[in-house]
């Protein structure tokens, strides 16, 4: 199989416009349905859940609540799995959660150098860059250079703490709460929490610049 599963996707479109990969995947799905191993309606359901229900808005609501509610934040830092589950986010690729709090002196950033480990229940499926070689290779050796590519420059005195997700522990960064947000509701706060700020490659938005 080696060498036959990639590389030719842009050269063999059939008359319906399906790429080489699309045809191969379709063939495998048909085979597995023939075998009785797969119910295609279950595939549709899986896709629907990860496209519509599970995504970074989940994590943003966790962070917003942690910003506003000190007791919840304390629980989140002590037992993230339980605190996050209490908001309805649990399960696959979030079975063992740890929350990391950014402060004025510590900035946390998460990577998976070996594959693509990512906290699905709170952030959804990872973006392409998170799973790709440039980020996986450089985050641990050049975190400030990587942050600069995301437009983030931290003071020299800030310690960058990288978390390489080598086991089944999944990490959620609690970004620094922006200034002048004391009056905001949970929903308005959550709108400031970007996906990248919960990975650690970004900062939370300022209420003055947020859309």
């Amino acid at each position: 199989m080696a060498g036959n599963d990639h590389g030719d996707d842009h050269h063999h479109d059939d008359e319906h416009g399906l790429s080489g990969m699309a045809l191969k995947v379709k063939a495998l799905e048909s085979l597995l349905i023939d075998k009785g191993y797969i119910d295609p309606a279950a595939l549709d359901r899986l896709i629907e859940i990860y496209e519509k229900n599970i995504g970074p808005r989940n994590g943003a609501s966790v962070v917003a609540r942690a910003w506003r509610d000190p007791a919840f934040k304390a629980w989140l830092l002590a037992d993230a799995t339980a605190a996050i589950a209490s908001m309805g986010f649990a399960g696959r690729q979030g079975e063992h959660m740890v929350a990391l709090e950014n402060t004025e002196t510590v900035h946390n950033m998460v990577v998976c150098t070996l594959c693509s480990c990512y906290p699905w229940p709170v952030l959804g499926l990872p973006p392409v860059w998170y799973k790709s070689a440039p980020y996986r290779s450089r985050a641990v050796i050049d975190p400030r250079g990587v942050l600069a590519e995301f437009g983030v420059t931290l003071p020299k005195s800030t310690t960058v703490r990288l978390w390489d997700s080598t086991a089944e522990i999944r990490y959620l960064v609690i970004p620094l709460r922006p200034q002048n947000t004391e009056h905001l509701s949970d929903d308005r706060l959550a709108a400031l929490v970007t996906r990248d700020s919960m990975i650690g490659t970004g900062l939370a938005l300022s209420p003055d610049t947020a859309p």
Partner: protein
Amino acid sequence: MNGVHDMGGTAGFGPISPQSDEPVFHEHWERRVFALTLAMGAARKWNIDTSRHARETVPPVQYLSSSYYQLWFAGLRKLLSAAGLVGEDELASGTSLRPPTAVTPLKPEDVASVLARGTPYARPSSAPARFRLGEQVRARNIHVEGHTRLPRYVRGRRGEIVRVHGTFVFPDSNAHGRGEDPQWLYTVAFTAAELWGETDNAIVNLDLWEPYLEGA
């Protein structure tokens, strides 16, 4: 294994190029590969460590030139074949040539609960932890031929235990049908100076199982 998947600290891959407003999937076939992988995983003919190993043993040139879901597709074919669920001839022809193995397909009405349940990897401890919080340890300089989660860039390096997580399924064993063999799992903090010889004040934390560590 010392494979190309073990990327920490390597160079030459270029800029990170994040895409703004990125969709969850870029192509329709990516949706199907993702869902096929999860649905077949629910049959429990393999585990997460087996599937990671299937992907990291894709030949290096192919690994590096594949997109993420191309790798998942290659991995899924290997897993299906290795588990005896389909033959290589069936994969090649796309046609079922033999009666199936008994597999109960994942039902659409069960998907949400299967995902919500997840697969916890913590296990009861049968022995006390060898290392304690704050202790100095060294990542062993070992080169496991099969699956391992000890990246090359920390081997031989000294770090500090900063979290003790309890005992967890040990991937080096679980990936190869040798059972779960639960082992203590720690977060070990390494300074950038220890890993890279730099004076940047960064700290790199990794989750490492006890057999990866020795006293320092």
